[in-house]
């Protein structure tokens, strides 16, 4: 296979190899949730085999008045793994947006780079012959539609379009992201538990101001590091931390895991005991689909919206909240979120209080320097 990414090592197109890397990187950025990128990966690989590599465009390369549309899947990952989307379903929401706005889409983008939705727009880009944008609206994974940087900047989420595999298409106008979440979720149920959706159609100018830039490249780099370390039998975690400006929070093993399903989300906590040099330490990790809070001895180690990932100590491969098992040897890593999540509105939307943890948010850089974080 020709390498389409020789241009000064800068990722300029998504080929089969890039898709393999991004799928792993997206799982790291999924911070334990976000769904398995497996089906999205297979869809993207199939489209690339058929149409060739998909061009990657950077936010700074966009015309200010160009139209960029996020495309993702909404619903239960279990359903999507059984009722895989149709090809038409992945472009129909774009058709509906174009019809409503009376103009062509210049590029598609993932709404979230963490987990399964990272590669969903690739198939539409390949079919349409348009580029995919090297950016998303989270820089990680979150569970609800309004948890996007576009929402923080007051960008209209409408028009919103959805499609199922039968050919049903929906055009919606919602007054805000919270109402979008309610209505889209109800429609998804009628559409059989899984649907494609475009929301927050944005201009090039809005992308430059409000999107989280270069996150597909970041996912690619993470995946590349993990694959190459595996081939060279090296420990990838050091390299990964450098890439992510991250911090190793804890080395240990899972000794207790409690999960429960509440309101459609997997909530719970896991306890880890330190191993080797860290014997005697105990970390608690709280999750709701994603890992949201890590604590030790009544002190925060990392707090949402900063990212917390669990990596296999040997391979560096990410571990999800669903696959975490007693005895797993892990390194917990934390890294800073996009600065927009640290604004008052950002914290109101995705901070610890929104998820029901009554603790203050302290940036991971300060926690790592030993400042604050007492609960």
């Amino acid at each position, binding site marked *: 296979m020709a390498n389409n990414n020789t241009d000064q090592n800068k990722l300029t197109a998504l080929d089969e190899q890039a898709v393999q890397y991004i799928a792993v990187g997206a799982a790291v950025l999924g911070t334990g949730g976000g769904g398995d990128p497996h089906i999205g990966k297979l869809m993207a690989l199939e489209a690339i085999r058929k149409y060739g590599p998909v061009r990657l465009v950077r936010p700074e390369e966009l015309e200010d008045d160009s139209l960029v549309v996020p495309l993702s899947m909404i619903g239960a990952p279990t359903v999507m793994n059984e*009722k*895989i989307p*149709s090809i038409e379903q992945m472009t129909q929401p774009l058709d509906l947006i174009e019809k409503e706005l009376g103009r062509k889409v210049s590029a598609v983008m993932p709404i979230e780079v963490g987990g399964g939705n990272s590669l969903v727009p690739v*198939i539409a880009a390949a079919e349409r012959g348009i580029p995919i944008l090297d950016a998303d609206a989270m820089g990680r994974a979150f569970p609800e539609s309004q948890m996007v940087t576009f929402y923080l900047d007051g960008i209209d989420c409408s028009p919103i379009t959805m499609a199922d*595999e039968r050919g049903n298409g929906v055009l919606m106008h919602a007054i805000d992201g919270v109402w979008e979440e309610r209505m889209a979720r109800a429609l998804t149920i009628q559409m059989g*538990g899984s649907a494609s959706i475009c929301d927050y159609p944005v201009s090039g100018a809005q992308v430059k101001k409000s999107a989280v830039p270069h996150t597909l490249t970041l996912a690619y780099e993470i995946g590349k590091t993990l694959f190459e370390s595996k081939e060279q039998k090296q420990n990838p975690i050091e390299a990964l931390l450098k890439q992510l400006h991250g911090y190793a929070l804890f080395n240990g093993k899972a000794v207790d895991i409690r999960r429960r399903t509440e309101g459609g989300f997997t909530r719970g906590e896991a306890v880890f005991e330190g191993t080797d040099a860290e014997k005697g330490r105990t970390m608690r990790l709280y999750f709701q689909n994603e890992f949201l809070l890590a604590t030790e001895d009544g002190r925060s180690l990392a707090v949402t919206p900063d990212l917390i990932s669990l990596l296999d100590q040997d391979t560096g491969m990410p571990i999800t909240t669903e696959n975490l098992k007693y005895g797993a040897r892990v390194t917990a890593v934390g890294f800073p979120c996009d600065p927009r999540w640290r604004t008052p509105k950002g914290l109101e939307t995705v901070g610890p209080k929104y998820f029901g943890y009554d603790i203050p948010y302290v940036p991971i850089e300060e926690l790592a320097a030993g400042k604050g974080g007492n609960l």
Partner: protein
Amino acid sequence: MPWTMMNNEETYRIGIDVGGTNTDAALLDSKLDTIHTVKVHTTRDVNEGIVESIRRLLAESGVNPARVQYAMLGTTHCTNAIVERKHLGKVGLIRIGAPATTSVPPLADWDDTLKAAVGPHAYVARGGYEYDGRTIVELDEAEIKDYLARMKGEVEAVAVCGVFSPVNASQEKRVAELAKEILGEGMPVTLSHEIGSIGILERENASLLNGALLNVIAGVVRGFEQALQSFGIDAGVYICQNDGTLMRSEYALRYPILTIACGPTNSIRGAAHLSGLNNALVVDIGGTTTDIGVLAQGFPRQSSAAVEIGGVRTNFRMPDILSIGIGGGTIVRAGGAGETVTVGPDSVGYELLKRGRIFGGDTLTATDVAVKLGRYEWDGARTEGLDASVCRQADEIITRDIEDAIDRMKTSAEDVDVILVGGGSILVPDKLQGVARIVRPDHYDAANAIGAALGEVSGETERIYSLDEMTYEEAMADAKNHAVEQAVLAGADRATVQIVLSEDIPLAYMPGNALLVKVKAAGRL
């Protein structure tokens, strides 16, 4: 001898486990006590090893072949066929999925050699159901007939896989009827809802592989039956599944994929039987590796992750096994001035009796260490000249690695019971960290063959129920009934069938109180 006395004579069963290196065989009586075991090398023509093991079992025990009532076989034939891409049959696939599923075609993640072995006839036809059993679109029978007609003369089996068929199997069954109509009554048809659970690509892959293995399993069953007949054994023939239960040979002829990886499972079942324990970790130490599995309610704990076979992702049940590179033949090295001792991961394997130091060979192995430390007595062992300090260091590493692996497989922090089986289990000291009790049963080195001989047969079901339409109790009762019927179909005596596993999972993001229920039932022959 009067016939009344004949009827009071003891009856027996034979269990055989064909592994990569050894073929083990065990003879059990009607109380399931072990009478005799033998171990022979697995031959290139696997059937030769099977014949030899039966011959020795009968000759050495002196049991009358006419009194052997059941014969069970666990084998790696099917795994080998997939891994080596040999003897696989051509399969025609009909996925009932369009308009859904078209973004990922069948065989998308298969490599070219396996694709070529199974053949080019894969079609996506209109049809499929929602998670609650509602029809997405009806079958287009003309379309199905067209695809089947194209397969004529070019396939040896047909596989059918429909969207949400584990919830509603009607369309798959209709396609099976059409396949028989067009390709003949004798055409074998694999329906995916009988093979795997939710997750269409994995289930489709497993169904295709099942179809491709039909010839392989037919050869295995025929060879086994002929071998038994040649010794005058007229027994019920059963084949081992990977979940630790048996299926009748007629059933195995239809579901060969269920035999994949039955070896570790047989060891776990055998260990359970020999020790009398129902909940424990089973540590099976062979010549090259240590396999650790979890015995829960008498059955192996299943793996929750997707399982790859020959590079293909499937989702049918497999035991959750952790393997580490420590066995009786594992090579121990003491390096240079620093005296650093390393253990493995390479092994002298079956050459242990030639190359091990205590046997006069030139290679220090884990077995030499165990004998030097007095853990096991071997007549004529040459322990003089073995460096005691090196042995102690090696032993520390071996013990620590095994303790670490045991800890990884535990499900809670409490100490567990450990059952030690396999020829290499002499390596392990009598105390291990995190372990409450170490049990070393009799016949520990034939636990796999004994596991094969144990006569439980099972059936299972996995369905999604909507609790808006029925109560939780009704849903569980329906699933349990279905599992019991499956067990009876597989050969279980209805009176002995019990529910051995029952779990329900509320589905995230799903409406109408959707509940995924998995139930498994098992009973005696």
